[in-house]
């Protein structure tokens, strides 16, 4: 979706202001917000792409007024509401016990899958990014639409977020790293480069 999350290349957000000796959390509720998000994640009522999409659907004016963990809580609120899970008795869900948190976090979750078809593109190919404006979830950043780049890495097939976020299965697609010239994408007057990891359906051969 052309939402507030897709901010690569935008201007006017002000200085970056890194904080020296930054604490891990800036308030006790932030620690709790992270814990609640992770605990709800392991109940498998949704997947990572659905939770990202829930945040992307927050109206832009609201999204940009919220802090990071506020965005997480707003997204979570929407996921719970959509599924009728706010009622404590609604459904019995698996519980993430405190003693299991470390092992769950350490385990991670791989997204590499076998694809039904062979890759259409290969390292060294010059390819063009399609001019896609999906209403649903996508991992194609807007600033790369229409740009031409070179494939520099092939990562095999991965779970395709554009399908996975909408309950349409994992639908694995081939994943490539593309290299672009900043000159071509943003009109830079130097030789700087940009790389992004893009799925095959976002690309067309030149």
């Amino acid at each position, binding site marked *: 979706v052309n939402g507030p999350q897709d*901010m690569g290349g935008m201007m006017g957000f002000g200085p970056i*202001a890194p*904080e020296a000796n930054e604490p*891990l959390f800036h308030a006790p509720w932030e620690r709790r917000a992270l814990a609640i998000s992770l605990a709800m994640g392991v109940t498998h009522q949704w997947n990572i792409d659905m939770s990202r999409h829930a945040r992307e659907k927050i109206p832009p004016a609201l999204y940009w007024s919220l802090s*990071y963990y506020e965005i997480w809580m707003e997204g979570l609120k929407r996921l719970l509401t959509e599924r009728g899970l706010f009622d404590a008795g609604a459904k019995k869900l698996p519980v993430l016990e405190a003693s299991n948190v470390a092992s769950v976090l350490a385990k991670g979750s791989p997204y590499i899958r076998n694809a039904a078809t062979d890759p259409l593109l290969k390292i060294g190919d010059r390819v063009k990014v399609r001019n896609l404006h999906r209403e649903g979830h996508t991992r194609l950043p807007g600033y790369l639409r229409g740009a031409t780049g070179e494939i520099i890495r092939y*990562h095999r097939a*991965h779970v395709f977020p554009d399908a996975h976020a909408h309950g349409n299965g994992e639908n694995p697609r081939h994943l490539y790293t593309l290299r672009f010239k900043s000159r071509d994408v943003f009109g830079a007057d130097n030789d*700087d480069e940009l790389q992004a*990891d893009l*799925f095959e359906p976002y690309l067309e051969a030149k």
Partner: protein
Amino acid sequence: MVALFNTPETHNMVVCTLCSCYPWPVLGLPPVWYKSPPYRSRAVIDPRGVLTEFGVTLPEKTKVSVWDSTAEIRYLVIPMRPANTEGLSEDELAGLISRDSMIGTRLAGKAA
């Protein structure tokens, strides 16, 4: 995870413009600035301006190479080894490395 090695020719910098993808297993939770609109918006269009805010000025001939973590591949920058560190132990070398140097927004520290 992919390691990106900085060289005199290329300085690497990692961002996630779409959310906050970050190498958690190695670097832990990302700092607030990494997840916030100023960095996410500017890292791709103005990486040298971003580096200036972190106090980093690169030689003009050094190319800046920005990696937008748009899928589930995670990136970690390996900073360039500072000058005059040949005799340092592993612990002393580790002391020159910061979290930000592994995101690519700072350089490794100078040898004492």
